[in-house]
């Protein structure tokens, strides 16, 4: 509450919750709702309390339990209490009915299996006589339909009827929202809706409902034109409204129009651009969002200059950074389609680097733009290089970058690269080199320093021998550079000696530090570059002194050409590189040795330099041939690779397809009916055949590895999506077909003998007493707790079964060609000892024998560890340890042994040695046996602990 931790009081809260007095009880429930959550161990203490409250005669108490449950619901609580909660749907008090509806929604989120059986009853509540109950039901369905609209299409007529009958605006808004969710799935619905929606837009006095209707219309691209025009007109009115809230909403609505029908907004362009100057940041940001879609070749210059003006006028760093981002986004959209004058664009970029933003966020973006424009647009290259070389000499950039968060210095990376690659366009090479040799460069990030060093070497080598440098480059890109080379070297302002003086200054010149200062860098790249440049220059100097005339520029004899985005991905990646090289090298020498190999062994240095260019000069046909060979070799290697599983679709494996292949999306479907939970093999086979049909849709989580590369990409994407994963998977599980009749019912978990708070207290006391007395001796509470544990386990087992089912499915889908196999685990305790050691209070040693049918693959390990985690949790609970144990499961796939180490904070160490051995195929342990064996654990294993 209010930001203070209340978890220490969890136990007391449970006590207050069980109080008889309603006013106290109420406070207890409130506290519980506020501070309990999954991670509080006490949550496991309250199901009975909640159950009692739900079944109580007092309406308010029932309501209390509902609102408490809706706040703290966990999967376990949901499963236990869902049937009780659902029963309240038919309660005569509307107060309870509506609360129940909303609580059910929360339970669905935690325990998705409940949705299917409970849904028909929720649907009934749409016709409830009490409007607030209807509203609650609409609320719930609206939330559900927003995520999985397909399943709720059948309900459109019901909502249609409600739409015309209900007058409550709150509910109407939600109904319109449902329509908005359903409409993209069903085009016919849209036609039907056109009339009532336009009626609603024209007549409703409530702005909120009006906005909702507009938003719904706007976000559908297939709406008929008359309605759309009306919507845009209304939105325009909202934007022009003096009320800031309406202005914001109008812009937001236009954002949806922009996505569906961008052409319609051209008439309101001026209004939107005016909003850029609004006082309110939120509105300005919304307008910025829209501007990108409104610019044209003609208007871009004025819009951008307006945006830059805005940027200078405000002193809010976040906002200014956002403008920088938008400017670059707007200019570079559709591959610079709107930019006619790139010199203008470069000037804009330069303006951005000169802006007075303290925390510059998008340095990398500007860096990329410089690189893109200057390398790809030859017409502005000379101008661009002049610009960026002035950046290097600009002390402002270094000053601004002193702030750790600012990324403005990223632009120096491209500046250094560009002004060395196109060095003949740099007006003052001496000042560039001297500013790169200043001490302030050391404060830049390591990678930029490395680029800077490389640039220094390039510029130096050019200045030493500009003719050779020019020749080298002119050779390479024959035709296009001819006219350029005329103005080259006109502005030669420095000599090699001057530059050498900058790079190796006199020892007594304190102002200059030279390249040697980089030698003490802790960045590996910088160190390596500086050391090798140093060595190269010294070697060169020696050679020159000896009278040899090797031009230094042979190091950079080729111009680096820009490569298309994603081109690297097109190059087939080769697994088992060694093998391929062995296959590939002899072939290459067979064909090409006449051209490349011989010449490369010749003595003359010029030819030596030229030989490196030779392979590049191969004709395109030759190149293609080589590529083809490479591909075939890779294919061969893949075929011979025992670890590579061929995919069912050959097209997906061809290397060209990788780059545009989206990682397939996993289809996570929980078994939709209770029957599947039974371990009948038939259910399995059906599932399997369905799965194999869709095998191309599956993802790595439980899918066939369709080529290692694919696996890689999906892994990456999985990482990115990891945050939302958990949440999304719930919504995927809630994605069930609701139209079919269902036979399943809500799980009814019998009230099992859980420890109530009071019991718990007394038991703890007893335990303490017992500990004092001595450990051996079975008293009655022991027996009780055992029973209780068993029943708890029964329940856990249910969930366990599910887990296992899922993992078995996964395993099967991994190898569709195999015969189906079942995984079953049986556990028996072979030996259990309790050891007492000094220093370590308790030490338990179990020898469990686990018999597992099936091959021991990775999923099995997961299965085992899951199983043990649930098992150990039970043990811990039973030992009344409130802390969750840390469990380390160590399995060695080929060997049948697996050790588990469990460390609880109380230093109780359990050591499990599990022997896993394969049973003959077909042997199948049912869960009833399984249960028996479990109880064997109870009898033999734990009672001996005492």
């Amino acid at each position: 509450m209010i930001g203070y931790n209340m978890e220490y009081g969890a136990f007391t809260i449970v006590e207050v919750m069980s109080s008889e007095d309603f006013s106290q009880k109420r406070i207890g429930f409130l506290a519980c709702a506020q501070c309990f959550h999954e991670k509080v161990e006490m949550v496991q203490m309250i199901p009975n309390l909640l159950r009692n409250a739900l079944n109580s005669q007092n309406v308010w108490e029932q309501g209390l339990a509902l609102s408490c449950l809706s706040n703290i619901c966990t999967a376990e609580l949901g499963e236990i209490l869902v049937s009780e909660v659902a029963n309240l749907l038919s309660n005569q008090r509307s107060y309870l009915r509506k609360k129940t509806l909303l609580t059910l929604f929360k339970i669905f989120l935690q325990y998705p299996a409940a949705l299917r059986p409970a849904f028909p009853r929720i649907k009934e509540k749409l016709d409830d006589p009490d409007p607030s109950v209807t509203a609650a039901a609409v609320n719930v369905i609206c939330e559900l339909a927003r995520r999985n609209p397909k399943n709720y299409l059948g309900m459109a007529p019901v909502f249609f009827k409600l739409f015309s009958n209900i007058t409550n605006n709150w509910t109407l808004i939600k109904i319109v929202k449902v329509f908005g969710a359903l409409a993209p799935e069903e085009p016919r619905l849209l036609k039907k809706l056109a009339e009532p929606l336009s009626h609603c837009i024209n007549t409703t006095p409530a702005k909120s409902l009006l906005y909702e209707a507009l938003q719904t219309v706007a976000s559908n691209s297939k709406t008929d034109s008359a309605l759309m025009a009306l919507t845009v007109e209304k939105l325009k009115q909202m934007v022009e409204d003096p009320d800031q809230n309406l202005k914001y909403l109008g812009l937001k609505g236009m954002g949806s129009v922009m996505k569906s029908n961008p052409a319609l907004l051209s008439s309101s362009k001026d209004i939107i651009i005016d909003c850029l100057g609004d006082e309110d940041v939120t509105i300005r940001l919304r307008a910025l969002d829209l501007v990108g879609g409104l610019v044209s070749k003609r208007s871009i210059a004025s819009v951008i200059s307006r945006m830059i003006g805005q940027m200078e006028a405000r002193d809010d760093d976040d906002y200014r950074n956002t403008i920088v981002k938008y400017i670059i986004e707007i200019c570079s959209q559709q591959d610079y389609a709107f930019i006619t004058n790139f010199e203008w664009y470069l000037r804009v970029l330069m303006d951005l680097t000169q802006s007075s933003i303290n925390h510059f966020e998008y340095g990398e973006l500007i860096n990329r733009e410089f690189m893109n424009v200057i390398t790809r647009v030859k017409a502005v290259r000379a101008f661009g290089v002049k610009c960026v070389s002035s950046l290097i000499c600009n002390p402002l950039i270094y000053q601004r970058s002193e702030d750790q968060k600012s990324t403005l210095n990223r632009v120096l990376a491209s500046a250094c690269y560009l002004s060395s690659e196109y060095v003949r366009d740099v007006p003052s090479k001496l000042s560039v080199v001297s500013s790169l040799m200043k001490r302030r460069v050391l404060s830049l990030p390591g990678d930029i320093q490395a680029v800077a060093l490389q640039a220094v070497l390039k510029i130096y080598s050019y200045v030493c021998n500009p003719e050779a440098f020019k020749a080298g480059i002119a050779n390479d890109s024959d035709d296009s550079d001819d006219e350029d080379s005329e103005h080259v070297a006109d502005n030669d302002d420095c000599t090699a000696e001057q530059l050498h003086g900058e790079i190796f200054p006199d020892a007594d010149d304190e102002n200059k530090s030279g390249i040697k200062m980089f030698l003490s860098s802790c960045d590996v790249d910088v160190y390596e570059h500086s050391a090798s440049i140093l060595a190269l220059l010294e070697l060169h100097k020696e050679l020159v002194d000896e009278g040899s005339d090797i031009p230094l520029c042979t190091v950079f004899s080729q111009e680096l050409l820009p490569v298309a985005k994603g081109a690297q991905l097109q190059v087939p990646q080769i697994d088992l590189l060694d093998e391929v090289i062995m296959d590939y090298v002899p072939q290459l020498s067979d064909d090409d040795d006449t051209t490349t190999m011989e010449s490369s062994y010749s003595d003359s240095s010029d030819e030596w330099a030229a030989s490196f260019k030779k392979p590049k000069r191969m004709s395109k046909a030759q190149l293609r041939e080589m590529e083809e060979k490479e591909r075939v070799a890779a294919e061969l290697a893949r075929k011979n690779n025992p670890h590579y599983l061929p995919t069912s679709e050959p097209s997906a494996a061809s290397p060209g397809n990788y780059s545009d292949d989206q990682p397939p999306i996993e289809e996570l479907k929980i078994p939709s009916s209770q029957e599947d939970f039974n371990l009948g093999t038939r259910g399995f086979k059906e599932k399997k055949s369905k799965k194999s049909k869709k095998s191309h849709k599956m993802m790595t989580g439980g899918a066939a590895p369709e080529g290692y590369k694919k696996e890689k990409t999906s892994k990456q994407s999985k990482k990115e999506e990891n945050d939302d994963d958990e949440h999304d998977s719930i919504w995927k599980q809630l994605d069930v077909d609701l139209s079919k009749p269902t036979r399943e019912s809500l799980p009814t978990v019998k009230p099992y003998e859980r420890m109530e708070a009071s019991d718990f207290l007394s038991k703890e006391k007893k335990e303490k007493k017992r500990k004092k007395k001595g450990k051996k001796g079975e008293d009655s509470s022991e027996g009780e707790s055992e029973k209780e544990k068993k029943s708890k386990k029964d329940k856990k087992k249910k969930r366990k079964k599910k887990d296992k089912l899922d993992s078995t499915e996964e395993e099967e889908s991994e190898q569709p060609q195999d015969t189906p196999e079942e995984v079953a685990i049986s556990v028996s305790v072979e030996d259990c000892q309790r050891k007492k050691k000094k220093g370590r209070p308790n030490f338990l040693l179990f020898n469990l024998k686990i018999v597992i049918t099936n091959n021991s693959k990775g999923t099995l390990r997961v299965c085992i560890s899951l199983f043990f985690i649930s098992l150990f949790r039970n043990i811990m609970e039973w030992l009344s340890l409130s802390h969750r144990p840390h469990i380390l499961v160590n399995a060695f796939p080929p060997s049948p042994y697996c050790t588990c180490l469990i460390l609880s904070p109380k230093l109780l160490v359990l050591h499990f040695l599990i022997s896993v051995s394969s049973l003959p195929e077909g042997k199948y342990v049912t869960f009833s046996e399984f249960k028996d064996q479990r109880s064997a654990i109870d009898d033999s294993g734990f009672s001996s602990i005492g």
Partner: protein
Amino acid sequence: MIHFLLLVNKQGQTRLAQYANYMELSKRVTLEGEVVRKCLQRKDNECSFIEHLQFKLIYRRYASLFFIVGVDGDENELAILEFIHVVVETLDRYFQNVCELDVMFNLEKAHFMVEEMFANGSIVETNKVNSLQSLLLVDKLSKK
């Protein structure tokens, strides 16, 4: 869906916080800090919506108290704005001219009221009489 409702005073102290989904305490504190800072900076002539991370904040200022509601992208902003007003009216009705101190010293009652009005991220009750009913009952019981 409504994610949280905050009642914050002008000094940035949280007086009432109700979350629909569990969020770690440390995260809550940082979130509230950022939210409050953003809201306090706003001027009167600016709109009542702020986009913050994945939330949209809808706030309303009553004298020195800010009522801030955090929703996800798909909630109707104007409806929430209206809802805030209903909450304030309900508080006002119960406390008779509600002020910050009323909420501070009757925290549990304020919580009860808010809990009656929205649950699970949806608005449950907008009728002032209905939402006060259970609270009045408790008062009656405790007087006995």
